């Protein structure tokens, strides 16, 4: 399946992806948070749609499911905002937004992708740091950081 990759050599931490995410979802709940590893290294934290999602296993309501295409989707109607997935996510990409008892979760801009477009964050990135690609393809042309963790490839670096 195609995933959103962050090229760490290009991200300038301008947070445009976060704004784009904010504007492209009806509930105005951004799913891209910002992580700071050191003061110098800040980058967007985007859902990796893991092959074995910890959030799915943690959800007591079975509100998180893995679709046929591989996307990990939250079922809005079932989510109670308990925050179990937030705790379970090993990458900290699920924001604990409990405003209206629903957790924010990346849906890979399902509606846009259906129309043949890229997700909003990828389209908006001014530095070209975000790409929407097949995990296998990107592994061939770049060094994928964390590639030993099956199916979770979060970031890549150019070689």
């Amino acid at each position, binding site marked *: 399946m195609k995933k959103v990759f962050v090229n760490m*050599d*290009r991200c*300038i*931490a*301008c*947070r*445009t992806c*976060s*704004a*784009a995410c*904010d*504007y*492209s979802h009806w509930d105005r709940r*951004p799913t891209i948070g*910002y992580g700071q590893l050191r*003061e*110098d290294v800040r980058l967007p934290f985007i859902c990796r749609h893991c092959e074995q999602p910890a959030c799915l296993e943690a959800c007591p309501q079975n509100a998180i499911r893995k679709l046929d295409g591989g996307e990990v989707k939250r079922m809005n109607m079932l989510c109670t905002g308990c925050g179990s997935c937030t705790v379970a996510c090993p990458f900290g990409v699920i924001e604990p937004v409990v405003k209206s008892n629903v957790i924010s979760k990346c849906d890979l801009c399902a509606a846009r992708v259906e129309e043949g*477009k890229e997700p*909003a964050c990828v*389209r*908006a*990135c*001014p*530095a*070209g740091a975000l790409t929407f690609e097949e995990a296998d393809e990107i592994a061939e042309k770049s060094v994928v950081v964390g590639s030993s963790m099956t199916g979770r490839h979060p970031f890549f670096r*150019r070689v």
Partner: protein
Amino acid sequence: MDTRESICLFCPMGCDIAFRVRGDEVVGPEFCGPAESHAGRVCGRGLYGTELLNHPQRIATPLVRDDDGRLRETSWDTALKSAAAGLRKTLETSGPESIAVVTEPTRSREELLAAERLAQAIGTDAVYCAFEPQDWPLLAETADAGVSAIEEASCVLAIGNVFVSHPVLAKQVIEAKYTARGNSLFVVGPRRSNTAWYASSHLQNRAGTEALVLALILKSVVESGKVEVTPPAWLSEVDADSFADACGVSRGDIARIARSFVDAEKAVVVFAPPARGVSDVGLVAALARLLAGIAGTGKECVCLAAGGNSRGAVAVANAEGWKPVSELVDGLRSGKYRALVNLGADVCESYPSDALESALAALDFSVSFSMFHGVLEQSASVVLGASSWLESDGSAELYDGRVVDWKTVGRPSWATRPIAVGVDALIAQLGATSGVDGKRASREVASEVQWLGRLNAIQRSAASVPEGQMSLVSLPAAGQSASGSVTGRIDWACQMFPTGFVEISAEDVAGLGVKDGESVVVRSESAEAELTLKVTDRLARGTIAVPAYDTKSRTLFEWTSKDGWFNTGPVMVSVSGKQAS
């Protein structure tokens, strides 16, 4: 649902931006504009455009202040009549010279010319454009190269935090760096900014000394003997050692940058100064252009302003003989002006000070065309809802001299009107006034400049920082435009780019007895502010930084006229723990 295209005027890059539109209502941004100049990319600021159109805090109806001092809703006709009556009264009592007109540089050319028409109808020569302090001196000369120069460059010399002030350039700069490899991106600035983090080499100079660094690079380029030009006479008188000492940089680093710049087949200087922190912006821009000119073929210069139509506004202002806005601030504070017509500007956010606020409150009469309620609107006699550039057709001149036209994307919300339309209606209401012709002589731009004298002045002030004082500079943000007067109303921007903090280096904090996250009091000559301390390893010792979009922090800078324009350099401040105050 349709898709309509327009441009973003939050900065002079003029990115193409597309909107989803239902009927005449703008629904949201459509993240894929035409695949031209910036491949449809915009930064966080540009995405706000949509939200501002239907923002709940927008001025929805014309408002007139009644005898109780409260603003009451009314019709456009009544409001324009009151505005005309008030202006006529001030004309009779104090004369046309006591009325000032002010507009701002994210307005289209048509709206700038409307300001000119209004000033002529009133008969005043006091017409101003509220530039960000760095923009006027930055753009005083000819237009620069465009984005293509950066794309093709194998060496980029960036002065300032280009990635943050103009994020859409990042792609070009990063690609240029990856294509060229090696020493190809140099950044000059007192803070290890996002741009500096990407640099092959970051020259961390003392705050405000960018002009000295460029003079040293120029000298090094000429001395290398690789260029066949006659060096300007003043360059031989530059005392390189004292300049390097004042900048806090080594001459070896300067020589390395100069060598890479000259040797590169195509190289470009990109200059994007913050609102405050670079002394004598005009001189730095002139030196950058001289460097590009002297270093041989294939060398270009790109100067980036903060305001979207700043170049267009400079062109209109110079052609029509407008005065520098620093005179407006001085004139208001001294009580020279008794009435003000504001066309979209927010002088209190741009040049905040207590003195200006009380001067605005003491005006006899003021009319404000504005999108949102600000400080002026609290005391204005008539408040009219203005539309943004997205709600009317217009044209603007970008940083590289390109002229762009756009069509309206949506109907103005509620009862707002484009400024040009409102101004013409106001002129019709005013009718024949005093009959004084408001024609002004063209403003003369100082051509002969004493560069060496100005450089020496910067060297002296940088070399003689008093004990216990630090240089305060302002920081741009990727999600807040200029002074933040408009974008500061967006929740997302407020969360992502918080206000009320001051960045200090760990070495400087050691002597203060305060910890990260605690409150400190920062005192400058003009004001003092209580801000939250943010300890950083990005700043060199002796420099502290506040966000440029924070009004409270901006009061620390003095906004008065100095040599005909605002001082753009850092200010000296002292910092103490809250208890000590």
